[in-house]
């Protein structure tokens, strides 16, 4: 009699112990997430508080200067814009075409396997090795110089895997009966892709493109190796002109010992951060819109 009741009590304390542990882990998980998000928040807050006083119209429309309070980011944001334009012209068509080929045309054979494995590895190699490759190949072998064209193409290669992978994922969510219906009405393969597959996957593809562009805007390391200059006091007039971009300008200001330049760096960082977070927010929103639009 007494032994059963003591076992019951034991079981009860056991269950309570497990529940307490469960609660404890729930708490640990919450703290972990909070820690990560608070770090992000403090990064944004620190940058905003230091940099905000420098944000003014003249900061956006002045060239870099020896005097910190006169220096601005005019050539940097124009350069970033031009470079990203070249990047999109190259990476978007190439990436979408590769994605469509791999999902709709490729047969399951060793070549396809090779291309797939290769894309996985491309996505994993450090960005600075793209820069080294571009220095050896674009700058010295093809004599494109340290130009906007070189920089845009380098970043194009860098973000290509992102676009390919997201294009494939978007196409894969389209059920096969859509294709079969199109074929049974007599459409050719390309007609099916053009009229059905691409429109239905455009949400996912656009998400990938926006994320890829946000990555290109923030990328610094490969552009240092292909020779982005830090002191450009004019606007580029052709794709072969030298250039600077926003992250490089920020890197230059961070690397200086004077504190006044650090304030400029924070202001440039704030602009950069706003742009990338805005683009990522857009990507999340596009994904949400299209998920509501197409339900298979």
């Amino acid at each position, binding site marked *: 009699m007494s032994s059963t009741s003591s076992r019951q009590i034991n079981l009860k304390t056991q269950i309570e112990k497990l529940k307490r542990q469960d609660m404890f882990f729930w708490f640990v*998980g919450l703290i972990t*997430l909070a820690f*990560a998000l608070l770090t992000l928040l403090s990064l944004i807050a620190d940058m905003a508080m230091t940099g905000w006083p420098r944000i003014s119209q003249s900061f956006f429309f002045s060239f870099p200067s020896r005097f910190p309070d006169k220096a601005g980011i005019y050539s940097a944001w124009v350069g970033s814009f031009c470079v990203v334009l070249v990047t999109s012209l190259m990476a978007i068509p190439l990436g979408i*075409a*590769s994605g469509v080929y791999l999902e709709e045309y490729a047969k399951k054979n060793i070549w396809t396997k090779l291309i797939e494995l290769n894309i996985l590895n491309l996505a994993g190699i450090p960005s*600075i090795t793209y820069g080294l490759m571009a220095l050896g190949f674009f700058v010295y072998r093809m004599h494109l110089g340290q130009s906007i064209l070189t920089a845009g193409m380098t970043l194009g290669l860098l973000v290509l895997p992102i676009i390919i992978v997201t294009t494939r994922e978007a196409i894969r969510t389209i059920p096969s009966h859509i294709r079969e219906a199109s074929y049974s009405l007599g459409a050719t393969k390309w007609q099916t892709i053009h009229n059905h597959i691409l429109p239905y996957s455009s949400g996912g593809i656009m998400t990938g493109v926006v994320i890829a562009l946000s990555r290109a805007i923030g990328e610094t390391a490969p552009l240092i190796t292909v020779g982005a200059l830090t002191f450009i006091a004019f606007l580029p007039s052709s794709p072969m002109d030298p250039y600077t971009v926003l992250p490089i300008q920020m*890197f230059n200001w961070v690397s200086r010992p004077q504190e006044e330049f650090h304030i400029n760096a924070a202001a440039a960082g704030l602009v950069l951060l706003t742009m990338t977070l805005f683009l990522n927010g857009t990507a999340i929103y596009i994904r949400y819109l299209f998920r509501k639009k197409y339900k298979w």
Partner: protein
Amino acid sequence: MAIRSEFSTPQSLKRRLRNFKESLIGLSLFLCALSSVLITFGVIYTLISEALPFFKDVSLKNFILDREWTPLFENPQYGILTLMSGTFLTTAIALTIAIPLGTVAAVFLSEYCSHRAREIFKPLLELLAAVPTVVYGYFALLFITPLLQKIIPSLESFNALSAGLVMGIMIIPYISSLSEDAMRAVPLHLREGSLAMGASKLQTSFNVIVPAAFSGIASAYVLGISRALGETMVVAIAAGLQPRLSLNPLESTQTLTAYIVQVSMGDLPQGSIGYRTIYVAGLVLLILTLTFNLIGQNIRARMENKYK
């Protein structure tokens, strides 16, 4: 007969034209897909061909055994281990942050969160990976280092510790997202079986789900490692430019990537020994990251076969 020829001639021409157009489109799409293979070979070929002449001047023995890396000095020494120690040190610090936090976050998101909460937290966590690395560099140098110096007064203003810590926070989402995907791919009946036997959520998570998803989680770790090895701007800004064969996190150090940045900032004539050294550093880095990537993919492929 007459009907047939009337029916077939214009039609077959039109059809042949259409088939031709179709196969042309197919071919050009194939060429686009093939371009990615060319890029890989381009990267590997350029790195090897620009790095190889270096070994005419420097013996492999010196390259591996020298204890200093001073290629631009008068008495140059080329001990690659010096740069590698910097890379491994910052990577190790980053991983001690990213692996525990990333794993806990993944378990929490996958097993403890409601669907709604996950939809909110996951994109927020992934924003950590969207912040440009140069911004993280600024944060490490001008926010984390002064903060740490209040606790550890002997900390140098350029140091491996704060660069590593910030890098760790940066790669949390890489680890947590991939690990969470792996945990959610574990079939529901395993979870239900464990809960039905009276196990708590915590016991189910760590005794059933994590072991079942282990290969996916391990591949997330491996990809996190290769991300940390190749990270450039954070270490170039915050860890300093002092190549040192030491594992002291409080001192400044130099990684393979930071060395490439430092040399590229100056003007280097093509073919000079300084120019060769950045390709050598890049090649070592490429070999390291490719090895880790292949290991990670191998582990993941094994998992995908397990739960088909």
